[in-house]
């Protein structure tokens, strides 16, 4: 196993808004990265998730999921 640097951009393949019994709904999705890999992550920001739109990817080390997805073309 060797470290591999993931691209920071991709497109949103799908998502779902998860409703927990307590607390606000949280969006999760799959992003297809520019190198062909797919990652599962939490969708951050106020913009509505739109399929096939461009997203940026970042990583968190303090909470799960590690991968965070943000809509790029959002106003």
């Amino acid at each position: 196993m060797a470290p591999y640097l993931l691209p920071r951009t991709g497109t949103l393949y799908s998502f779902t808004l998860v409703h927990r019994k307590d607390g606000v709904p949280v969006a999760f999705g799959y992003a297809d990265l520019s190198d062909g890999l797919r990652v599962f992550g939490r969708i951050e920001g106020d913009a509505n998730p739109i399929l096939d739109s461009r997203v940026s990817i970042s990583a968190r080390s303090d909470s799960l999921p590690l991968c965070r997805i943000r809509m790029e073309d959002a106003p």
Partner: protein
Amino acid sequence: MRRVDVIGVGLTPFGRHHGRSTSEIARPAILAALRDAGIERRDVQAAYCGSAYGGMMIGQRSLAAIGLTGIPITNVENACSSSATAFAMAYRAIASGQYDIALAFGVDKLSQFGGGTIPLVNEDWEVSQGISMPMIYAMRATRYLHEYGLTPERLAQVPVKARKHGARNPDAQFQSEVTLEQVISARPVADPFTLLHCCPTGDGGAAALLCAEQMTARLGAQGVRILASELTSGKFRAGFRDMTEPEITLRGAALAYEEAGIGADEINVAEFHDAFSIAELIYCEAFGFCARGEAISLVESGETSLGGRRPVNPSGGLLSKGHPVGATGIAQMVEIVNQLRGRCGSRQVENAKIGLTHATGGGATGFDHGACTIHIFGQ
């Protein structure tokens, strides 16, 4: 390979069996299958038990009080395909001449977890990141609705149909109908799913006795022939995957049709793995019941409802009958075998000659699903 028949089936009704252990839930199904086949315990030469959460030696624990021990007992875990995999193993053992009569059964008790989604294995990457089965299927549904221009309201017709069927099944966990409005306004779980788009967690058992064709008449049993027994695993892929195209089921369906020597048009009745509403649509397409993107029209036209041309999930499916995961595969076979024998009462499918069961499951990173089992039965 020898031909193999199913000569007896039995169910422990699906629901919540508080106060009963997993093995206690298995036993009524096994005893019912033995009675149905009209054979003695000493006739059973081997047993295969499928369970996802039953724990070590669930087969032996279930069979101990029945006095069916001292024979080879094999415990099988293959997620939602566990008991269908156990059945496939029994089939292969008889077909190859190893045994003449074998028992396959499945059991699970999901009420032990006190509710919520089924526990997955945390060493899987996406599971470690918080994914769950409802989320996987919900993302599949979101993509499907997007690609084919469907609304969540149209998708909500699938659970309405399932519950209509389940209302005629005394072994189902849910035996009441629901309206479209009830499905739409139920508690949201993971968009586009409300609670009624998701199968309930529950407890139950299912059993089948398999026998070499030559023995069936001698035993005086009403046998149903196994025309195909297909078992496969998903293909791992790290990158892009079309979630609306269930590759494991597509591949398995083609092999099963080939093995049975029939085409999709010859199937009269089917039990598909509808753990969530979207699944029935995707599997109707994967099995060639319609073109891609058109399965909702089968629901809307009534073609796949009881009374329609080709009913899908007459038992109520997982959405209505329930889904104690290890029991599900053989429970589907109980329904199809009884349909082919004309024993399904108010939900009997007219002139059912050939039926199909499909149990697939196991959410894991990089797989469509981990396991898939498809069986075709004929009179």
